């Protein structure tokens, strides 16, 4: 796919816009792109990045530089080509979700897929409240974009912006009419979120991936139900989104 934009939007965080094949099949929020990084075979594994938005043949990903692959990505210039497989995985099941009050809960690099999700939900006449957690003020991104979708609460670990603390701390103050939650972020956060809420919800998991297409069994997680016929789920194929409670966190 072609790079249309690749810009710094927050501390070590970049927003990349791509266009090319596949974009039209990117319809379900929560899916990811599987991106080749580096030249030749210097990096044998692709990097999964969530779809943060799709708009007029343009797909957006938002990524944080954490290692060599994301570093390499951040150095791509406009007009260059990036080798992308996607969309992969099973995203948030929002078909038919209408006129509900949904809360989106995201932490760090779990925030990006929630934006596309929120946009879709609003298009489907839902009310959306977003609770987004970041490490600190420097790391906050897309605040205004989320505000356009609905009420948006920001937390930072160090209190340098918004509420000081974790997103789970705010669950109690949420409006009682919330009907469902969708969440993406680090495992401890997802655990906290799914243990705190009593309403139904869906969570999106991360795991180190090999193939990213369901063939290598690198990314499995256990099902909560010991009677489940398979006993496991593949995050790259059955997920990354699962109904809260389906898999062991």
């Amino acid at each position, binding site marked *: 796919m072609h790079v249309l934009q690749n810009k710094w939007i927050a501390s070590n965080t970049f927003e990349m816009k791509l266009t090319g094949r596949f974009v039209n099949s990117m319809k379900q929020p929560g899916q990811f792109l599987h991106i*080749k990084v580096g030249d030749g*075979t*210097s*990096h*044998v*594994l*692709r990097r999964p990045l969530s779809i943060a938005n799709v708009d007029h043949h343009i797909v957006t990903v938002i990524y944080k530089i954490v290692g060599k692959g994301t570093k390499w990505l951040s150095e791509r210039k406009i007009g260059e080509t990036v080798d992308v*497989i996607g969309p992969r995985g099973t995203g948030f099941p929002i078909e038919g979700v209408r006129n509900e009050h949904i809360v989106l809960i995201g932490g760090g690099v779990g925030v990006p897929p929630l934006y596309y999700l929120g946009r879709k939900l609003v298009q489907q006449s839902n009310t959306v409240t977003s609770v987004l957690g970041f490490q600190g003020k420097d790391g906050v991104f897309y605040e205004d974009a989320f505000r356009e979708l609905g009420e948006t609460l920001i937390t930072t670990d160090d209190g340098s912006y918004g509420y000081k603390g974790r997103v789970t701390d705010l669950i109690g103050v949420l409006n009682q009419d919330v009907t469902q939650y969708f969440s993406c972020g680090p495992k401890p956060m997802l655990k906290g979120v799914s243990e705190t809420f009593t309403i139904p919800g869906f969570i999106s998991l991360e*795991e*180190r*991936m*090999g*193939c*990213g*297409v*369901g*063939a*290598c*069994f*690198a*990314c*499995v*997680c*256990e099902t909560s139900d010991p009677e489940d016929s*398979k*006993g*496991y789920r593949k995050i790259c*194929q059955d997920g990354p989104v699962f109904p809260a409670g389906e898999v062991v966190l």
Partner: protein
Amino acid sequence: MDLRVSLPGLELKNPILPASGCFGFGREFSEFYDLNELGAITIKAATSEGRFGNPTPRVAETSGGMLNAIGLQNPGVKRIMEEELKFLEQYETPILANVAGSTEEEYVEVARELGAHHRVNALELNISCPNVKEGGIQFGTDPSLAASLTRAVKSVSEVPVYVKLSPNTGDIVEMAKAVEGAGADGLSMINTLVGMKLDLGTGRPILANGTGGLSGPSIKPVAIRMVYQVSQAVSIPIIGMGGVTCVEDVLEFLLAGASAVAVGTANFQNPLICPELIEQLPELMDRCGYGSVQACIGRSFKHEETSLSGT
């Protein structure tokens, strides 16, 4: 250009097959291309009962390679036959079924069942999985254990048996000769080298299992060397693998003495790698002056013999 290769149990229309464990049971890749294009399909290791495998993380990237410690996760031989081989019935491509186990009895049981399945053309005895304590690696590092296991499996298998060798040994030739002597119909080599990567943040190994198997371009020179040495020491054919990412690598394995070439890790970076290699091979062979795959096999040392004997 003649790409055909005829191996015990496997009539390959071209020498390219996916390596076990990197291709599942073919289902996912069938969305990318028609599996009938492949020379053969190696399916993921089967054990007698289903196994969940190791805790995650199970993979880590290294310079020019990767570590995996999947831990032989598979649904067990019964479900593989019922669900996966069933799915593969729609294709004509020969199937090489990878067999694993913790005990000789388990290997024998799995081999008996899979070898009797009409869709399985040959077995690949995985005595080299480094990632589970009870994964057969003990068989893969001791030539006499390997030989006795090979003999036991041969005695029950209805199809030819390829033994998959571990590179984690000081003497690969000795190992190869031992299993050849025990009746192996062919060899697969190499499995992964045992490696480790630490997470500098936590100070601990990245893989939950601690160690993992190193695959990818990093290990190709070791694989080429082993195929070169072993193919001159045995008379059974070799399916070569380890780090193949481009058509030049395929030719290198053939010249080193492999009769067919399996592609593992590279499927992860490029799901279309196998059909691309099949398409590109004739042009490269032609450019290098080879008229058939058969003519390439072992050329590195056959060449030498010729010139040494003065002709």
